[in-house]
């Protein structure tokens, strides 16, 4: 019964609070911005097409009157064709430029800007995660991070490919065997966020989850030293 009662609540929640569009870090906000931007541009395209589509299908439907008409032969129209070639190019440039900028921004390239960055080693294996902090402490189910401090993840896998994903903090980064991938992120709000494996990795792929707790820096220090 309790579960049934939750249905309407979940309905409302799910409508306006999609995780990817509710970013809690700069990285995720950048990505959400790109999503909104591309969605906006694309909605414009959809509208234009829909408008033409509806107009033409309604206006030129076969009726009793035009049943035997022979439409005029029409090879094409240079001007129109140029318009619908050039216009999308402009729209796409409008999307491509921010895409390039943000892709460079969110990718980890070499040195960290922040000496104070926290380094976390993440190891994926079938079917659990291991998070190892700088002092050698390890956790599995929960990843605890300090607020407002840059975190650099060093990820590697013991077996197959996994993918590390905390939707509210950043996009995915694959976790490969025999190779280290990196991801940087700075959480900006405290809270508990879902984390998942996003690359199909075998029987219990669906259960390869973890919780991400972002807490205040002071609390984080005590938590880390207590462990």
């Amino acid at each position: 019964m309790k579960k049934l009662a939750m249905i309407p609540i979940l309905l409302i929640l799910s409508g306006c609070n999609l995780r990817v569009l509710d970013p809690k870090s700069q990285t995720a906000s950048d990505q959400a911005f790109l999503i909104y931007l591309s969605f906006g541009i694309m909605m414009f395209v959809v509208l234009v097409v829909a408008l033409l589509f509806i107009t033409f299908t309604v206006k030129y439907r076969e009726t009793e009157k035009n049943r035997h008409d022979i439409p005029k032969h029409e090879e094409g129209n240079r001007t129109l064709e140029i318009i619908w070639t050039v216009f999308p190019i402009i729209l796409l440039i409008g999307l491509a430029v921010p895409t390039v900028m943000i892709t460079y921004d969110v990718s980890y390239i070499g040195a960290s800007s922040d000496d104070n960055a926290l380094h976390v080693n993440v190891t994926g294996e079938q079917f659990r995660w291991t998070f190892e902090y700088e002092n050698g402490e390890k956790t599995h189910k929960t990843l605890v991070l300090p607020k407002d401090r840059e975190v650099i993840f060093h990820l590697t896998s013991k077996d197959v490919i996994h993918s590390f994903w905390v939707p509210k903090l950043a996009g995915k980064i694959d976790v490969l065997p025999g190779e280290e991938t990196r991801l940087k992120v700075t959480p900006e709000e405290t809270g508990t966020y879902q984390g998942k494996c996003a690359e199909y990795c075998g029987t219990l792929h669906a259960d390869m989850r973890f919780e991400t707790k972002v807490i205040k820096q002071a609390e984080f220090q005590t938590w880390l030293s207590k462990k």
Partner: protein
Amino acid sequence: MEINLFGKLILLPTDVIAAWVLMIITGPLVLYWLTKKRAWPVIWDYATSTHHRKIGTVYIIFSILFFFRAGVDALFIRLQLITPENQFWVFQGDKYNEIFTTHGTMMIFFVATPLLIGLMNVAVPLQIGANDLAFPYLNLVSVYLFVTGGMIFFAAFFFNAAPNAGWTAYAPLSTSTFTAGPNNNYYILGLQVSGLGTIFAAINMLVTILRLRAPGLKLTRMPLFPWASLITSFLILVAFPVLAIALLLLQFDRQFGSQFFMGELGHPVYWQHLFWIFGHPEVYILALPAFGIFSDIISAFSRKNVFGYTSMVAALALIGLLGLMVWAHHMFTVGLGPFANTFFAITTMMIAIPTGIKVFNWLFTMRKGVIRIQTPMLFALGFIPTFVMGGVTGVMLASAAADMQYHDTYFVVAHFHYVIIGSTVLGSFAGIYYWYPKITGKMLDDKLGKWHFWLFLIGFHLTFFPQHLAGLNGMPRRVYDYTWEDGVFVYNFISSIGAFMMGASMLIVLWNVYKTHRKKEENAGADPWDGRTLEWSVPSPSPEHPFEKMPVISRRDPLWWAKLEKKELPHTENHRASPVSVKTVQPMFLSVALTIMSFGFIYGWIWMQILGGAAALASFVIRAFNDERKPAYEREEMDNEQ
């Protein structure tokens, strides 16, 4: 199901047992029904004939069969996901993984691709005034390879060994270290055999289009479906060999101890490169022929020529070309670095430009026309908005940084179902309704066709639109379970309802076919749709070698202008030799040989590999001494001596 027998725990795969039981019951019934209907001579005719229409029909029938099979898989997937923490039948964990792998692989390789090749087989020779495909014998071999590959893959489930590494078979999960057992060997061998058939079909199609066109039918006067087939064939020739080698390397990893794709010594990402160098062009292999079908249908049912023909052809070529250099957009999250990522993001976005040109050209083909809304046109009309929605999410996905959020979530699942169902499946349905009279001489019922369309289209949007939102809310793909807290229940629930609507619509198709063939109706005539292209100038169903007197073509849409001017198409004596047809059982023999060899490799039985391999080679020798052209060449020699 678990049974405790004398203190031993036995695991029974109830789904497999159910399938066996179902087959044992229905199998004899079907055989009895076929015997009673005296269908065996017809079946034998279709199994041994090299006539392009019959081969095309076999392609279509088997693809539809596989479509039902993979569709049932999809329904099981949706039943398992209908509520959070659900336990439907056996479909959790590995069984779920098997079922989505089967669904994906089968839909791509054994439904979408062969369905389009089947339609090409039926329509392309007639549209370009060719008497048959250039190599009729090879054509029969191709269809046998497809059916053999499909059946090998199909059989896996009955031996409780369905592949379970996803249709992309990402290594190292797909190597024997992590998925032991024969399961993924079925994937490798099934695709290898059918892939070879696809390559042969493409060679056949290319030579036919380049060399067998009617006099005067320049490439620039060809309808757009042959054009799309031409470019698609080229893409197949580039993409499928790469897949063949990738599968070969994977097979070495699985069976002979090499480590190409293993973590320590090899490169797991190399598999992804190879797979997507094949896989992305494959997407266009599926989409372009559908574009061609829609171009022809929209033009015919608007009673107007295609708007901007030249740019339509250029757009097809450009999409094909760009499609070869965008593969890494499937790999934005593997850490290729921002330079590679942005490069592939931009090439991907560029594809939107020619695609946009096509969409606007279709719209302007309809403008000022007379739009007759019958079933094929209805599918074409449904295609435009559906495909545009899939296309725009494609551009969203191309945006590399944003894709890191979408990647491997239900957003991607929604996107590719929008494009593939939107183009390929709707296109194939449209094509089947459109050319059905040319295949059988009968028209499918228009009213039932419309019911099929609306139920399918509404079901489709119900199924896949919510999946965008589920993906944005953090639901990864390929999970058999989710929790209440994930907040994706409603989307999944709606999705499952939609899936059953799509399933129901397919029953209407069956009913429609049954109803059409039950009546002893008179022939639909050569030109039931008031068509514009050459295929409507020959009788329905199309006879063998229909163009013994060749039509002479002087412009596009020749039939239309001939009808307007109330004249016959001008004819000439055949200007070149026609391909030689033959009735042969040799491909059947090859198919048996390859089946034996494949099972040898799947289970590692060396004697079977040798037996099957030797038999397959023997079929080459048999063929070498039984060339169907021998009598014709002998006659020619005698004629020339006189």
